């Protein structure tokens, strides 16, 4: 407690505070730019922290990484383009809301959810530190494999009424993920002798290709503005009210976010999809999901901010980064001369609290600034898209080029973009493909390790059995609700049809 207060006074000290604010500003800018996420932010800030005192450096880096999932909502909601890999699921309902002219409401709700999720993450980080080690150690490779499978089981609900296409799309994603170096044997797959493919297709390119490209194409073909109505509807305050009304959703998804962040190796890029899938699965009236249901915005946005708090645990206590940005953060720790490990809780407890306070404060500033900015920015949605498109294409190309800085990035973006557009045209669920892609490495690696180490007996581990039951329950729940929904939906459409014919 004393250490916590001491760290608070350090963080609030003007010189440190300045770094926290600088970090928040960098994070907000990077989040707003489509495709750029925590890895880019960390890479930009890493050279600066050399020779800094660790508290300032922590304030800067954590301030930055904490607010990316807040501001990356802007492009996701307003343009249907993922602001970073953490906000891909926000598109599903955020963007339809913007089309209806309710961008401000969606943003208000998203930022409130982000704020609560972020604070929740920081709080959990504080409480869980003493018991974090045994929990992390309870998840061996077989359990991590089952968790990846649980993520895959979301494909069903995310594919709506096209489960067959969803499974196939996930298969396409798995195959894209299998390109390049194999995770466990020194072999390269399907590289066709092209050096670029040796490392596989980068996540940012798959994300932008599948989601951003098709959206830009279609908007240009239609030749209109993003919002289908000329006036902007409900304001951000309505969004805040929505968030308060659905507080339980936010709480549940924050917990999901912390857990996914907390478990090393699962990767933060699926947290938004898992939260989104979870909320569809556990909701009875799910007809509006994908058409602008505010709950579909709240779920991923609370989870992706909460994840950052969870993600610090394996990084600081074990030196194993849970996500790409945490891997760079780990390098930052080494530059500062700090070896992560159990000593973080004994020798560096003040730094740990600095991290927590930075996380909490950054979330408050980030959400505040974003709400402040949202009014002018939402006006972009009523501009004819032809004016915005060149700028968007430029940014997306640049963001893709960041991935490995070679020609291959641009070609890969084009190929993925065409794939995404074709999928969109023919109604193939792109989220399913993305989930398959993101989880392919985990699924293969952990299955490979489990079988090597335990043979067939890995399936008899308690954790594995529990997770298997959860997967079965989650699938059953999805099917159950789907069945219940279908007759009702049919009758609704019949009503609509009769109405239309009467007219």
């Amino acid at each position, binding site marked *: 407690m004393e250490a916590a207060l001491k760290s608070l006074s350090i963080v609030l000290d003007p010189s440190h505070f300045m770094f926290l604010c600088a970090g928040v500003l960098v994070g907000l800018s990077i989040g707003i730019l489509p495709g750029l996420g925590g890895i880019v932010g960390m890479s930009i800030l*890493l050279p600066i922290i050399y020779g800094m005192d660790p508290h300032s450096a922590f304030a800067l880096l954590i301030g930055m990484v904490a607010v990316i999932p807040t501001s990356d909502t802007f492009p996701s909601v307003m343009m249907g383009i993922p602001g970073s890999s953490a906000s891909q699921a926000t598109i599903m309902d955020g963007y339809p809301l913007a089309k209806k002219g309710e961008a401000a409401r969606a943003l208000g709700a998203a930022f409130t959810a982000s704020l609560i999720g972020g604070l929740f993450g920081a709080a959990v980080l504080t409480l869980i530190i003493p018991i974090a080690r045994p929990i992390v150690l309870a998840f061996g490779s077989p359990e991590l494999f089952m968790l990846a499978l649980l993520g895959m089981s979301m494909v069903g609900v995310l594919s709506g009424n096209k489960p067959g296409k969803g499974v196939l799309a996930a298969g396409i994603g798995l195959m894209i993920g299998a390109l390049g170096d194999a995770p466990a044997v020194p072999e390269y797959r399907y590289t066709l002798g092209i*050096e670029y493919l040796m490392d596989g297709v980068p996540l940012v390119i798959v994300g932008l290709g599948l989601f951003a490209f098709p959206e830009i194409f279609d908007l240009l073909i239609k030749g209109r503005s993003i919002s289908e109505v000329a006036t902007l509807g409900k304001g951000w305050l309505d969004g805040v009210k929505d968030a308060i009304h659905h507080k339980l959703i936010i709480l549940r998804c924050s917990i999901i976010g912390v857990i996914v962040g907390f478990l090393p190796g699962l990767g933060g890029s699926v947290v938004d999809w898992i939260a989104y899938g979870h909320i569809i699965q556990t909701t009875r009236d799910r007809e509006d999901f994908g058409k602008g249901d505010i709950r579909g915005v709240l779920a991923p946005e609370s989870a992706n901010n909460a994840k950052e708090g969870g993600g610090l645990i394996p990084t600081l206590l074990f030196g194993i980064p849970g996500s790409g940005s945490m891997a760079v953060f780990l390098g930052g720790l080494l*530059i500062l001369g700090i070896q992560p*490990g159990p000593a973080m809780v004994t020798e560096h407890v003040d730094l740990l609290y600095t991290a927590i306070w930075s996380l909490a404060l950054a979330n408050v500033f980030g959400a505040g600034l974003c709400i402040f900015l949202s009014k002018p920015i939402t006006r972009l949605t009523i501009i004819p898209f032809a004016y915005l498109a060149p700028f968007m294409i430029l940014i997306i190309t640049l963001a893709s080029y960041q991935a490995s800085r070679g020609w291959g990035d641009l070609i890969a973006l084009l190929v993925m973009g065409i794939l995404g557009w074709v999928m969109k045209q023919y109604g193939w669920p792109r989220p399913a493909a993305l989930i398959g892609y993101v989880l392919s490495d985990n699924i293969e690696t952990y299955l490979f390790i489990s079988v090597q*180490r335990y043979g067939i007996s890995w399936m008899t581990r308690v954790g594995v059995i529990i997770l298997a039951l959860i997967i079965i329950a989650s699938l059953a729940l999805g099917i159950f609700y789907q069945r219940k929904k279908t007759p009702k939906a049919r009758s609704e459409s019949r009503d609509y049809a009769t109405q239309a014919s009467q007219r």
Partner: protein
Amino acid sequence: MRKTCMLLGMAFFLVSSLGLAPPAQGVDFSGKTIQWIIPFKVGGGSDVWARLYAPFFKKYLPGNPTVAVKNMPGAGSITGGNYFHTKARGDGLTVFGSSGSTSFPYLLGVSAVKYDFTKYHIVFASPTGGAAYIKPGLGVDSVKDLKGFKTKLNYASQGATSLDIIPLLAFEMLGLDVKGVFGYKGRGAGRVAFEQGETSIDYQTTTAFIKNVRPLVKQGLAVPLMSWGILDEKGSVVRDPVEPDLPSFPEAYEMVHGKKPSGPAWQAWKAFFVAGFGVQKAMWLPEKTPEDIVMAYRTAAAKILKDQEFKKVIEKSLGGYQQLVGKEARMAFNEVLSVSPESKKWLINWLKERYDVTVK
């Protein structure tokens, strides 16, 4: 904030123009930017290593050029190495940072490798160390007990052609029955697997060993076995000064087998040990670099190692190992370059027979 920055900038400019006038010699990098190609991602071990050195090269190279780290990850560092080989000009403005993962495919004769260390000029090299430990309760209290030890062990590995060649071959030479479990992402994940009980024998670099394994030893959760050792001036492998209580691998071998290590397995082990640990990371200038530029770099490196501030950096972030400059670095790296074709062949064959891995 802005004002302070400007003031700082002006102060820096004044100090640098007054105090550090360029020395009277031919080489002058003033106003230039030097690209230091690191064939790995931002935040990785090699990246951190280069970023720790970079500001000191700015300080000590004639003309105080900006030294920018350029990350070129890809194909396990082959992409960056090949880029350096084909694109770098001998003007001293492009340098390369290699690591053990760059040297291994070179030594194994991987066909994608175009770079050739025999052609470049080494500036300095940084060694690192590693130490192995085993699960308690197996009847092993020190490395001596490994004599005739037959229990099956598991080791978490990134892959048979990675730096893990060194632990895997060392365990085999000690007569241990160790199964490599492949697919783990780095040593950190390997250590967690050990703590989870997924594996029963492991190694860490000495810095990670001190921070993460010693606490386990204290709690009775791990038994330290040996360090790999370090390379001395004569080119033999001796005890690691960072872990002086632990026997080196050659000592461990002697304790188990009653004789000093020799033969093709030992030759191969030593060659790859030097490439992977003894001179793990090195800075290189391209082939056609004039002598005076090479000298300017080596002089700068020598000055850096005498810098009091940098000594702290070595202690804190580079494991406290003696860094090698110029001739010392060249001699140490010669151990890597002079690996006999027989040793290479032996190792490639061993990988094939033991792990069914074909080097392409």
